[in-house]
């Protein structure tokens, strides 16, 4: 079986399309069967693309015998260079890294100087234990300190911390966060993805609902919680609040279960529905004008 990546992995729509393709493989392939993951046509990858690719490759690697076709287009150098800069090869399954090393000169990327601080970057991490969340927030604070106002830095650190906790507790898998600040555009992109069971499967037995979309809405707009009989479930509400409190034109997307959503200050809209695949994929663009 072949799993081909879209040419771009940069928007929530691209991630949604990639997950639909992963779902097709999941539906039609037996455990331990060989699959070729074809990234040869990958021309551009963003922070959320890196995080989503890392999460899905871990899931695929746990189930299948995977081989990789590495990026091979005119943009391959840029794509692989950015993936390396984002720490992707330290986070992805080892056999993926080996496949890249066997098929191109990765040393030239590993040996590059990383002096360019124009776009402040919190590289992709793997977080799988509660004890890692505090240091994760602190690392983000240290990197962003002096570039944004302290309160904005707190918002970003807190958003990542809350979402990481959700992944660990409800998803039951590691999660993969990263942050990039673009001073020219005055935007901060936050991505965090896991390969757990997703919001709908976590909550569907705990909140009344008529559709899976309603479950996702309640998860984000109310204090619905994956833990029964406890006064909690505020994490996603706080993420939304911190995203929009300072700027209504911030963007908040999530892909979970079988659909991609855009979250607004007071509502959640379905962007597109597709096929169920594991994980929850958050992509938040904070406007800091």
């Amino acid at each position, binding site marked *: 079986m072949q799993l081909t990546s879209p040419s771009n992995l940069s928007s929530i729509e691209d991630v949604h399309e990639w997950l639909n393709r992963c779902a097709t493989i999941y539906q039609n392939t037996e455990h331990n069967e060989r699959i070729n993951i074809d990234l040869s046509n990958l021309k551009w990858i963003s922070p959320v693309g890196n995080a989503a690719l890392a999460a899905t490759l871990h899931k695929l690697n746990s189930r299948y015998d995977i081989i990789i076709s590495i990026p091979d287009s005119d943009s391959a150098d840029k794509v692989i260079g950015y993936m390396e800069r984002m720490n992707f090869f330290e986070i992805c399954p080892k056999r993926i890294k080996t496949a890249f090393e066997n098929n191109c000169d990765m040393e030239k990327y590993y040996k590059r100087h990383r002096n360019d601080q124009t776009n402040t970057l919190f590289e992709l991490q793997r977080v799988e234990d*509660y*004890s890692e*969340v*505090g*240091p994760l*927030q*602190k690392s983000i*604070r240290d990197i962003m300190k002096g570039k944004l106002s*302290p*309160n904005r*830095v*707190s918002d970003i*650190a*807190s958003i990542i*911390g*809350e979402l990481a*906790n959700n992944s*660990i*507790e409800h998803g039951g898998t590691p999660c993969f966060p990263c942050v990039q600040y673009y001073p020219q555009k005055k935007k901060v992109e936050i991505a965090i993805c896991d390969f757990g069971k997703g919001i709908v499967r976590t909550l569907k037995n705990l909140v009344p609902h008529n559709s899976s979309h309603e479950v996702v809405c309640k998860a984000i707009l109310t204090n619905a919680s994956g833990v029964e009989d*406890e*006064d*909690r479930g*505020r*994490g996603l*509400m*706080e993420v939304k*609040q*911190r995203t929009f409190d300072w700027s209504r034109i911030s963007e908040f997307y999530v892909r979970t279960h079988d659909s991609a959503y855009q979250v607004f200050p007071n509502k959640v809209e379905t962007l597109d529905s597709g096929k169920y695949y594991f994980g929850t994929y958050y992509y938040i663009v904070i406007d800091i004008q």
Partner: protein
Amino acid sequence: MVDAMRLISLLHQEEKFIDLVGRRPAVPLKDAIIELMEEAPKGTIFYYDLNEVREVNGSGIHEVIVKPLEWLYENFKSHEKFLILKNLSVEYDHLYNIQITCNKEKVSIIAQNEESYEVIGNKAGDALLELLDLTYLHKQVTARDLAKILDKKHTLIATHLTKLYEYRLISRQEEQLQEGGRQYIYSSLF
């Protein structure tokens, strides 16, 4: 009379600091705090020393600060106890982060600074905060004192002071008046 302030340490054994950043790890800490509050003598003023705390987020604050406060509100008649914060960190932006959660959960807590204090959270509105300021300025007041200072009705001031007391922002003692009757003397927590 209230006792001297009592530290509730948030640290586990051997730890030098703690991050209050998630729900699940904070639940046992919150349970231990409330147990400690239940067992302490009436009138105890507890405090957290936030020098012990580095990173915080909404889930951690809700569990370790908001829930004990809500327990104190619910049990103010049987457990006349209080909780304040000391040594908020600028580096970890404690004030802003705690404010967000306290506002959302409609609770208020006093943070003691070196020479002053700050009320975090919006449970008490402006009218109450005016009385709170005067109480902390004079350390001890009666409704009659403040009614005179502000030229307002004694009954209104008494109602507001009772609210501040129920919100655990000031303490009070009952006093027998020489001319007969009783009145409350309201005190700042420090």
